[in-house]
Every structure is written in C-alpha cells, then in structure tokens.
C-alpha cells in the first residue's frame, strides 16, 4: 500500500498495518509522539488496534521536553 506520511508518499508491502507496525517498519525510535490518520487523532492506547490503509494520510509529530 501507499500512504502519505507527513506529506511524503511511502510504500509498504503490507495491505494494512497497525500504527505500532508502521512504527516498527519505519524503525522510528521510542519518542513521545502524536499521530493523526486522515485528520483523526489516534490515542496512544490504540496504536495496536488502529489500522492504516492504502491511501491514508498519516501525520506524526514529536513532542520534546523543554519550554
């Protein structure tokens, strides 16, 4: 499937995948993040069950301490 990840097109072999799986596949490090799929916020506790599908628009931002 192809998805938009932070406005960049990315291709995955999977037909669908959980948010957790995408994080594994992309080898994203453990950091505090917020993820939206097609504009809908995915709470952390739903990363295992929220499914990303072909053509989805996935937005991710990292939250770093300091202010």
């Amino acid at each position: 499937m192809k998805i938009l990840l932070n406005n960049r097109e990315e291709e995955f072999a999977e037909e669908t995948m959980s948010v957790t799986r995408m994080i594994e596949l992309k080898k994203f490090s453990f950091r505090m993040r917020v993820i939206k799929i097609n504009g809908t916020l995915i709470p952390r506790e739903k990363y295992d069950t929220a499914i990303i599908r072909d053509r989805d628009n996935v937005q991710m931002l990292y939250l770093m301490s300091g202010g």
Partner: protein
Amino acid sequence: MILIMRFPEIESHLKKFRAGIAGAGGLGSNCAVALARSGIGTLVIADFDVVEPANLNRQYYFADQTGLLKTDALKETISRINPGVSIITCNLKLDESNITEVFAGCDVIVEAFDKKEMKVMLIETVLSEIPGVPLVVGSGLAGYGSNETIRSRKIDDTLYVCGDEATTADDDLPPMAPRVGIVANMQANTVIEILMQRK
C-alpha cells in the same frame, strides 16, 4: 496569504480575539508578551508555578518578581506593556479535567508546557474535548545555535507545531533565551496568522 494592512488595522482586528496560553514558562511568557504587543484582545494564562531565579535565563520575568505566581507576574508585566489587553489568570495545574473549562471561549490555544507528557496530554484533550479550536504546539528548542533546524509546520487546520521536533531539554542541553524565544515567537506568529484569516 499576507494581506497588506497597516498596524492599527491589524491591532483592531486582533482585539476581537481570545488566546489561551497553557503554561507560563519560557514558551508561554514570551508568546503572551508578543501577542500582547500585537494587540490581542484577551489572554487566558494558566500556570501553577512561581517565578524562580533559574527561570530568568529564558522566561519573561524580572529578578524582582522572584517568588510571585507566574500568572500574577506576567499579568503585571503585560499590563505595563499594553494595558488594553484583558488578562484572565488561572492559578492551577492543567489536566484532562479542567482544560476544557479553562480555555472555553478561546479562539486559539498555545501549548507552552515544559514536559513532553504534558504536551501530549494537552493535545489529546484539546483535539477530543474542544475540537475545531486551533492548537499551536511548541516542540524542540533546547540548547543554542542551529537556527536552520527550527521550523513551523501546519498539520491541519487545528494543529500546528513550532520547533525542531528533535532536541530534548535536560541538564546537558539546557533551554536558553534565544531558541526558546524563537519558538515562542513562532507560536505567536502562527496565532496571528490564524486570527488574521478569521472574520
């Protein structure tokens, strides 16, 4: 889109709006001052902390305000800069149970916390409890130098992020006035851009 407008027109437009400031530390105090100078109508400032000497390397407070509640100190400073700004202070620790009430009626909210867990809590609460209100997040501002890594991104109409999204403040990479001030002012700049597009 930037419309050509004279400052008095911008100021009188911004006067119609209310901005919420979640946290009055380095990001919140500097952002609030920039919005006050620009003519924002009302600021809702929420924080529970007092001014400490260690804050003065980056936060918009003065040595003689040490020991005062940050909300009270910032209200006093802003009233000296622009007495036309209405300031509502909330001396409390923001959490899931009070954010909606504190920021009710705000046209835009600025996330200005220090800890990443608090940032996520605020984002999740605002997006689920008060959807549609734009939230401007600060993330990644520690250390000095590296101007080019600091950026501003629009996720969508209700979520914006300013900062490098990479550096974490700690003892070996302290938050300092220049980079904190850059991000805080980028947040203020984003707030103004959002509000200038409103009728």
